[in-house]
């Protein structure tokens, strides 16, 4: 007992001298853990309701779709509502390749979006927002502060051509998923805000509701997932042009 007390007597001042931040998480570690969290979901199926909200008038437009996703890059999106657009389907493949199937126009068309700034299915989310972020590869992070449940990080994009100057991301302290992302434009003002509500399915956490507000447009898109199925073992063959047409016809 005496030895323990003596050891503590020497160790405690020594520990106090060690900088506190060495105990805390490194911002880079947090980004790596965010990437790991994202990677836990291999594939996903869900029913999606997209609410397009005009914040000034309060008018809401609703679209419904079926989603199949094999992460990181393959997505099948089949619209079921409104009736005039039911049966329209998109298949996104690695390399920014998108196939669009519109039943009234027969064969699917390969869409090359060379603009690379296109919105995801005419929503306030961009195609980049919907894909893998590769947090640790694409951003340099610093911890702004922490609270009981979250880290608040400032992320600077490594790519100088981004349309925003920085992101301020609120990261769940326990599960490392982003809860809120503030996008700052090149003038340093907040231009967009994303919010995510997560749901635990088995041992996995996935966003059940994602919303994106574009302050300049005064517009918000809310994506609500239901009947979510994760890691069902979807195959690459489920994400072919043939499957796009077959699935779209079933929806129609």
């Amino acid at each position, binding site marked *: 007992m005496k030895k323990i007390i003596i050891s503590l007597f020497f160790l405690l001042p020594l520990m106090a001298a060690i900088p506190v931040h060495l105990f805390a998480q490194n911002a880079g570690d947090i980004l790596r853990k965010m990437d790991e969290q994202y990677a836990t979901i291999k594939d996903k199926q869900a029913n999606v309701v997209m609410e397009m909200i005009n914040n000034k008038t309060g008018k809401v437009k609703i679209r419904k779709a079926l989603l199949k996703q094999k992460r990181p890059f393959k997505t099948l999106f089949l619209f079921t509502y409104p009736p005039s657009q039911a049966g329209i389907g998109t298949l996104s493949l690695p390399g920014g390749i998108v196939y669009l199937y519109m039943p*009234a126009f027969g064969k699917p068309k390969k*869409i090359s979006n060379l603009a690379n700034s296109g919105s995801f299915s005419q929503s306030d989310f961009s195609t980049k927002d919907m894909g893998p972020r590769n947090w640790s590869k694409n951003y340099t992070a610093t911890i702004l502060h922490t609270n009981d449940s979250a880290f608040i990080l400032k992320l600077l994009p490594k790519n100088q051509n981004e349309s925003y100057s920085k992101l301020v991301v609120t990261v769940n302290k326990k599960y490392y998923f982003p809860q809120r992302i503030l996008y700052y434009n090149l003038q340093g003002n907040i231009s967009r805000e994303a919010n995510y509500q997560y749901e635990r399915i088995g041992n996995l956490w996935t966003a059940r509701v994602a919303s994106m507000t574009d302050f300049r447009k005064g517009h918000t898109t809310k994506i609500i997932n239901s009947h979510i199925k994760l890691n069902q073992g979807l195959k690459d063959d489920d994400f072919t042009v043939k499957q796009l047409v077959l699935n779209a016809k079933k929806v129609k």
Partner: protein
Amino acid sequence: MDKLAKLITQLKWPIIILTVLLTGFFGFELTKIKINSNVIDSLPANDSVVSLFKNIGKQFGGNQMGMLIVQSDNVFKPGALKDLQSITKTLDTIHGISSVTSLTNTLNFGGVGNNFQVAPLINMNKLPRTQRGIDSLKNIVLSNKMYRGNLVSADGSASLVAFKFSDGSNDEKVVKDIQSAIKKLSLHEKVYFAGNPFVTAMVSKIISEDLIYLIPITFLVISIILFLSFHSLQGIVLPMLSAGLAIIWALGCMPLMGLNMSMVSNNIPIILMAIGSAYTIHVLNRINQCRENDYREAIRKAMGHIFIPVSLAALTTMIGFVSFIFGAYLKMIRDFGIITAVGTFFAALLSLFFIPALLAVFPTRVIRKTTLTPKKSYLNDYVLTPLTKLIFKHPKYILYTWILLILISLSGVLSIRRSVDVKDYFKKSNPERIAENIMNQKFGGTKPVFLQFTGNMQSPQVLKTMKKAENYLEKSPSISSVQSIADIIIKLNGTLTGKYKIPDSETAIGQLWFLLNGNQNISQLVSGNLDKGVVVAKFNDKGNHAAADFAKYMKPFLAQNSRPGCKIQITGMPFINAEMDRSLLKSQIASLIIATVFVIGIVSLILWSFTKGLLTSIPIVVTIIILFGTMGLTGIPLNMVTVLVASIAMGIGIDYSIHFITQFHDRIKNGFSLQDAISDTMKISGKAILINFSSVAGGFMVLAFSKLVPMQYFGILVALSMLSSSLGALTLMPVILIIRNKKRLKTA
């Protein structure tokens, strides 16, 4: 009247305290005053063309479009394109702008076989470096009618960055932000700002500057004239004080009544200063004439004499202003009429109550230190006496001179042109005017014509009618470019199927809409619910009748194609301008008739004789003829501001004749011969008329330094009218009196 005069001196302190309190109150209200120089806000809401225009502006953002013109020898040069890109990116980040379109961020879609490609119209990462590359890019872009004449001029020397202001944004602040952000960019090419928000902001800026610079100058000019006339400090301070208070009270009423300063009402302070000071001059003059040992008694006596003439002078002036309330098409003109009438009332009220009360409190100072009558009268010696001699010596020559002036003026009256174009409000060197000229020369103008379609925008029939309307519009010589959603649907369908036409099935159109949903630029052509769409055309101004001819051209098309399920309505700035143009004439005639009838009526009542009333009105009628003649002969147009001159001239100018004729009859009643009565009237009233004319005309002439062209014309024309009406009262009126009373004169 004596009782009232007595009451004023008895209640001097309550009057002064009340005046101070009211000044504090109105002064506080004055801080809330807002400037709104947007002509669109002033258009009558109950006019169907206007309400449709406003609704379209609200729904499709057409009214609040801004344009930044980049001018270069070739806008396809890398330097110019980089300028366009940096402007586009900068505007994109400004709060209050909801969308920005330029050559550098426009997406082009096209495709071969099963490939559908969405790509930037110009790849900014691979800009052409050789002349051949530049020419090739120029040819590609200019071959597309969606861009040619809309985003880039047909000769490739100017390109537009078009942007839409967010709904409910503070446009004036956004304009300032845009201008300061663009200033910070190091651009290679010259840029100009165009569009309604910029024009409105420029007018507001000029209004503020005019108010800041011109009011003190007017104050100074009138003060100098008053000093030269009276050689006394009191003769300057009191008229200026009462006019200044009347301005504060009148302008303080504007926020209380929910009215804004406009490009018409910014001359209110100058008008009130000129008018307001005149009433106090009359009061002071009369008090001075009635000077006795007991100063308060002198005030009472003077007020007994002056109360009714000043009240009636104010009443006739108010009628001149009130006449704008009836028959004016633009709200800003009605507001102007209300506030100037109220201001004239306040000016008279202050002159008749506050000034005597003030003089009753400080009698000794006033009496001992001031001499309102100069020892030597230059006006009498060098102007009025020679003029009186001339009148008696050559009455016929004077009459013939006036007749000649009337005939010359009549020849000009018919050639008065009208102008409702806001661009004419700026000097030729003004950047807004230059921008407007570039827009007219290179982009087919800034005046939009809208054809609103109400119906299902997914219906092939509706879209086909829309395309038909586009083709019909393009055949009109007044139209320079046409755009609608039908064009975009045709292009999309062509890219997907190879058939460049509106698809025959509603399902196919519905699916094409999938590609367009959420596109910011589409919202300028179609409503969010897809139940309304617009064909937007640019109108080329070609003469005064172009809008009427165009309306005639469109009439049969609308009659044949507008049907249930596809209602077509037409509106646009050319139609509103045409209506404003018609209304200028209507409101000029209406306000003149109202002013003439009331003024003659009141003068007849004062003189208790309709003949005398008519006689008194001769100088002012002649003044109006000369005014319109001058406008016609010099090319000064009748516009939103100059339309006010005639009634104002009548309201103020009639006072000179009233003063002359009342003094003349007073002398006749007191047994003076005609010659003596006229000579005496020339001495007493003539002097007051000349002083009054100098201060009023001097005050208005300051407006010649305004940066707004119509305001310059306004100042010059009012000053000219004052000159004409005062000279009319001092020469024409006595000559008529001499000719009418020839026999009496001979006997004498």
